[in-house]
């Protein structure tokens, strides 16, 4: 809600050019090896986020109701006052920014400004609660609930994404700002956290703040609760009719063709891409003429390093695998905490398919394209791994 509300007002003005290939390190991560663009990039990334939270900046735009409630609480107002006076901040805003805590001379008539800020937060929170309880929100035909996703899931994932995994994203300019795109990634990590981190990266860092519509295995939709979380955050069953419908509607679709072979592989096989199935994702892209954007995700393999797979137990529980990690199942629920590995995500140049629309049923074309995507991801994975010698580094 927050992000989509802000877009039209232009307060979220990340300059498109700054989202360069290897800029955009996550907040206070300081990945030492990517020395280039270290200084300006974090500013550009940090600034809009906090300027939206920063109370004085918000003052001129109080009309847009529900915003403040979804700001998340770890952003202390005033933390980046020096950043706030950065180059691409509009001048008047920076001027207000000078006095974030003291009594602002030109503020509204009410004296207690900090209280007002919290008032607005509480009001927005209550309004959100009322809308939810009255059912006054929209879901699309796949069950996607943008309001809930923005207000609940993305703020949670953002913590994981930024503070726990210190994710760095590159190549965002390869993802279309609007219109359809098929993002194809490597799958890893025993639990499919990489899909969620990828969707957070695209929603937070991409200039179009796009929602990634994930295609999940039917096992996900077989499980109660999980299935509904998946649907409400924009997921649907991985099948060609759904993929083509989403792509036809101009959505950004995320798919992991390795499936369970990818997330359920042993730690010793980390970053080795598994077989890509029948290439159904390629034919979906070909039928709709959608560009394919390969993406390599490094870091997912270390969050739950799978040392062994207890197959009989998996069969008993009707799961594709039963993982044994250094912490699971030994530490019980504590074993569910992912290890804080360092994540790097790189989007590769898109592969256009508009000229191949007629060959969607040609297995040769489909397999060749799937192979090309696979090679690209594998190659990029190796490149990223060289950049990250220590999996748990800063």
């Amino acid at each position, binding site marked *: 809600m927050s992000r989509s509300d802000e877009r039209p007002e232009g307060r979220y003005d990340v300059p498109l050019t700054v989202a360069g290939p290897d800029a955009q390190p996550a907040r206070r991560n300081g990945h030492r090896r990517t020395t280039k663009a270290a200084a300006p990039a974090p500013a550009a990334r940090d600034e809009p986020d906090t300027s939206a939270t920063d109370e004085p900046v918000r003052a001129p735009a109080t009309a847009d109701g529900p915003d403040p409630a979804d700001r998340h609480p770890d952003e202390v107002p005033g933390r980046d006052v020096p950043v706030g006076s950065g180059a691409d901040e509009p001048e008047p805003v920076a001027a207000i920014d000078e006095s974030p805590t003291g009594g602002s001379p030109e503020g509204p008539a009410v004296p207690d400004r900090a209280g007002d800020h919290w008032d607005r937060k509480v009001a927005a929170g209550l309004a959100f609660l009322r809308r939810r309880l*009255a*059912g006054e929100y929209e879901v*699309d035909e796949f069950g996607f609930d943008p309001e809930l996703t923005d207000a609940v899931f993305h703020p949670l994932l953002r913590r994981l994404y930024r503070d726990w995994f210190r994710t760095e994203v590159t190549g965002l300019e390869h993802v279309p700002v609007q219109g359809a795109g098929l993002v194809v990634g490597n799958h890893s990590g025993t639990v499919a956290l990489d899909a969620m981190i990828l969707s957070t990266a695209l929603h937070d860092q991409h200039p179009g703040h796009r929602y990634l519509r994930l295609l999940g295995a039917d096992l996900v939709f077989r499980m*109660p609760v999980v*299935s509904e979380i998946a649907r409400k955050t924009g997921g*649907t069953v991985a099948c060609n009719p*759904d993929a083509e*419908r989403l792509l036809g509607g101009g959505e950004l679709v995320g798919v992991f063709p390795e499936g369970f072979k990818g997330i359920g592989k042993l730690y010793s096989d980390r970053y080795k891409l598994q077989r890509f199935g029948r290439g159904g994702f390629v034919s979906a892209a070909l039928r709709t003429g959608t560009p394919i954007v390969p993406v390599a995700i490094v870091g997912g393999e270390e969050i739950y390093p799978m040392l062994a797979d207890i197959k009989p137990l998996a069969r008993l529980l009707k799961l594709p695998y039963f993982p044994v990690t250094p912490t699971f199942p030994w530490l019980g629920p504590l074993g569910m905490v992912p290890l804080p590995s360092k994540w790097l995500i790189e989007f590769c140049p898109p592969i256009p398919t508009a000229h191949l629309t007629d060959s969607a049923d040609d297995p040769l074309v489909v397999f060749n394209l799937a192979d090309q995507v696979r090679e690209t991801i594998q190659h990029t994975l190796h490149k990223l791994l060289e950049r990250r010698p220590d999996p748990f580094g800063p």
Partner: protein
Amino acid sequence: MTPGGTPGAPGVVVVTGVGRYLGAHVAARLAADPRIERVIGVDPTTPGPEFTDLLDRVERVRLDLGSLAGLLADLDVDAVVHLALVSAPDPQHGGRTAMKEQNVIGTMQLLAACQRAPRLRKLVVRSSTAAYGASFRDPAVFTEETEPREVPRGGFGRDILDIEGYVRGFRRRRPDVTATVLRFAPFIGSTADTTLTRYFSQPFVPTVFGRDPRLQFVHFDDALEVLHRSIAEDHPGTYNVAGPGVLSLSQAIRRAGRVAVPVLEPGLSGAAALARNLGFGRYGLDQVDLFVHGRVVDTSRLEQEYGFTPRSTAAAFDDFIRAHHGGVVLTRDTLAAAEQLVMESIRQVRSAVQERS
């Protein structure tokens, strides 16, 4: 309301199932259309007293579907609208056995009679979106081409598959007859009384734990309109009829001001079976499957072919809410008032604190 002067409008129309809500309304509506000369309502039982006014311009014949052949030939019938389907077993009228008898055997007999009716030009069959079954591997949105992945558990779903199979056979044998199959989403509206409207009328609504299915409804008046156009115009083929848009079950319950009571799925199936055996409640596995999987269909083919868009699912549901405001537990006004109250008390506490300091 329908484009006038269509050459497709038939002279003599037979409507089956006029003893029920949908059949009675369709027959009355067709009888009011000046382009149609005669409307004959067929039902094995005498229509209930609530429909007598409605059906005063309809010729009523008390007839089993099995002995329809003579009628079709004698009266030179041009079109048949088959609406005599039972969507849930009624323990007072023979339960599931009678339901299957009526749905499957009745349709077989009707189609056999239609096949031998020389002047028949048009056949309209009521079907249901239950034809798509329910499976975890289903696509999110069904188009008319989607095949069911599994045979449905529920009796109605299985009946619907059988009925559509017989209509396919009929189409092959009588290619000269315009056959229209309308797959309706669950009906809802201000006056309709169906299993689903009764479900949403309860103050506490049982749902399946951990599932929030996507639902679609079609407003009863829109269903009438589509059925009317199917008879007055020529629209061969199979069409999904549903209100565009989606409501999730939890959202629908909240909008209706009811309270959801999540029940574990095995428990719900058992409870449904128990309730059926005890003779109250008509929830079957059809409903349980719907509330686990949800069902959303694509209606673009209907919109293109008929030039008509039913009102959206949300609008249809709103109409239902307005007519059923008894038994509401939580209204929007209550919520808004509660919000105001909390805000007000916060303000008061804060001003009190300020005064003290």
